[in-house]
């Protein structure tokens, strides 16, 4: 009987060794690599849609006065640029990387819940069709900023329920993805792989997944209450009915600040994989890196008030939020110094993943330092609602999160496709991105310090020069991303054969490098032993 079952199983195995063909492969995908690929392609599409919105914004801001659009549409663009980039580009890209790499790194044959994995991906195209569809309904898309502060957000037109439903779907998708990552890591690690032996990328994702489960429901709860305020005459946040709009800000930022770390911790993990490989040295202080990530995640829950200093709050609360925010610099500093120590006296080489990782280190630190400036209460009153804030969070999210994603893609792409990509084209992409990201965002510090408010389509003439520079940087950065797509497409279509180790002359650590390139459709049919 057992033998017969085994034979059935073998038959099943044969049948499912190869992927299905055509659209069915993707619609009914349960293989973690297929789903990871779909997440990554989806996020690249969203990156270009969100990027197109950003270029329209920069085109309007090229000169003072209204050139291309009415203020209402400008506000819709800023709101949806943020929503698309955060929930459509950055988060799905990290989930895609987790889908591809977590099972390979922990020695598991797949994610623990493959069907849920399929479902959590396929929710996203519907959510974003709904979100982008809001541009075409009467009253236009949401224009009150991605923070959805009431009462402004409650003035959204017919698109309001579409927006809220889309956010709920994104949240459900993220929570399901997070559950899958946690149960995979906790239950399906290869024999001998203790938690402390686990690669840093998997560690960073384990912590990120817990953050997601804790805060995405809070966002969902807050927008559900917005919905009931809008349609069912409740007054959670409606001051006219005895509600408290400031309470929404507290709840939103209880989600919003950890969300920032959800978008950066996996990048920390990626950088911690890449720097040792191309420095040809083990990661300095690997265990302290794990504790640093966990400390940052914990602190992210108690600092949300720094987004609301200008709302007015007791001095004791201001001091608490200021000090706790500054405290985050300690574990972040541990990471930056560990990365630097990893490179110190290493035998460095500068392949595209390493270039992006080094740029991440420098430019993310700039975003971190401007964050420290914003944490100082009296200074925050000066910087609040200016372009300085815009410059700060873009330095964290673009050369931070997005460069982290690009570093990861360039690092693992040959493992996924089995081909090496064009190093020259990838390096050109890097240099154009690294130069123009600074042309785009660095002048915004000056604009903010000079008092230019954010979220406006028009500005005083004295801000013209730096806005022109910033817009030129924006167009150049945006266009240079086309190279990224070209490198990926070329690499998928063919190229020099990649070896199992991919990066010859280096010593990359991790189970993924023990598999051939491309990684087989079902990896680790026998669980690897870790010693």
């Amino acid at each position, binding site marked *: 009987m*057992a033998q017969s*079952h*085994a034979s059935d*199983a073998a038959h*099943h*195995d044969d049948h*499912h060794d190869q992927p299905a063909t055509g659209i069915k492969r993707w619609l009914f995908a*349960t*293989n973690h690599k297929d789903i990871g690929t779909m997440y990554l392609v989806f996020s690249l599409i969203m990156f270009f849609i969100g990027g197109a919105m950003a270029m329209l914004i920069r085109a309007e801001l090229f000169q003072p006065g209204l050139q291309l659009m009415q203020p209402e549409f400008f506000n819709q663009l800023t709101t949806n640029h943020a929503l698309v980039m955060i929930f459509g580009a950055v988060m799905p890209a990290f989930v895609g990387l987790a889908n591809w790499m977590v099972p390979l790194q922990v*020695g*598991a*044959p*797949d*994610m*623990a*819940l*493959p*069907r*849920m994995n399929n479902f959590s991906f396929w929710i996203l195209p519907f959510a974003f069709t709904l979100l982008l569809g809001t541009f075409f309904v009467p009253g236009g898309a949401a224009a009150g900023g991605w923070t959805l502060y009431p009462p402004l957000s409650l003035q959204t037109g017919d698109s309001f329920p579409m927006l809220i439903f889309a956010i709920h779907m994104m949240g459900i998708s993220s*929570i399901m993805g*997070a*559950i*899958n990552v*946690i*149960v995979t890591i*906790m*239950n*399906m690690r*290869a024999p001998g792989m203790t938690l402390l032996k686990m690669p840093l990328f998997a560690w960073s994702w384990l912590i990120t997944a817990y953050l997601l*489960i*804790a*805060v*995405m*429901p*809070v966002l*969902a*709860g*807050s927008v*559900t*209450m917005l919905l009931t305020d809008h349609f069912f005459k409740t*007054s*959670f946040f409606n001051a006219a009915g*005895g*509600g408290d709009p400031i*309470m929404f800000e507290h*709840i939103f930022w209880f989600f919003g600040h950890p969300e920032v770390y959800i978008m950066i911790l996996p990048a920390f993990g990626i950088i911690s994989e890449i720097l040792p490989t191309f420095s040809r040295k083990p990661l300095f202080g690997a265990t302290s890196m794990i504790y640093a990530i966990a400390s940052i995640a914990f602190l992210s829950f108690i600092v949300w008030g720094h987004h609301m200093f200008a709302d007015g709050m007791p001095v004791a609360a201001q001091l608490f939020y200021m000090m706790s925010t500054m405290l985050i610099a300690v574990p972040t500093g541990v990471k930056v110094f560990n990365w630097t120590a990893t490179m110190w006296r290493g035998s460095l080489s500068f392949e595209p993943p390493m270039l992006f990782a080094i740029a991440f280190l420098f430019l993310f630190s700039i975003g971190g330092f401007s964050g420290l400036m914003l944490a100082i209460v009296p200074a925050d009153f000066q910087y609040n609602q200016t372009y300085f804030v815009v410059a700060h969070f873009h330095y964290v999210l673009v050369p931070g999160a997005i460069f982290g994603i690009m570093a990861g893609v360039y690092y693992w792409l040959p493992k996924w496709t089995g081909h090496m990509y064009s190093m020259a084209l990838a390096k050109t992409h890097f240099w154009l991105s690294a130069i123009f990201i600074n042309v785009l965002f660095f002048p915004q510090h000056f604009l903010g310090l000079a008092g230019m408010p954010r979220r406006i389509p028009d500005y005083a003439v004295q801000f013209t020069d730096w806005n022109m520079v910033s817009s030129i940087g924006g167009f150049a950065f945006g266009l240079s991303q086309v190279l990224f797509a070209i490198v990926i497409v070329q690499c998928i279509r063919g190229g020099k054969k990649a070896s199992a180790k991919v990066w010859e002359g280096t010593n990359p650590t991790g189970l993924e490098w023990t598999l051939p390139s491309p990684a087989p459709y*079902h990896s*680790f*049919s*026998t*669980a690897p032993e870790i010693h």
Partner: protein
Amino acid sequence: MDVAFTCAVSQLLDGPGNSLSVNGTRTLETSMKRRVRNGALGLAALAAVFYFGFIALLVYRSHH
């Protein structure tokens, strides 16, 4: 065939009701499935507690 593989593949192909039968691995496999299922349900419950908890907190606050 190892336990993790049979567990994942059986979920992949047949769902939780029909596990692959490999000599000596069935108990371990069932135990892993149970851990995966319980872990997922526990985490989903935690997410639900945060969702409904925050709404309940604000309902309470609006009445006091």
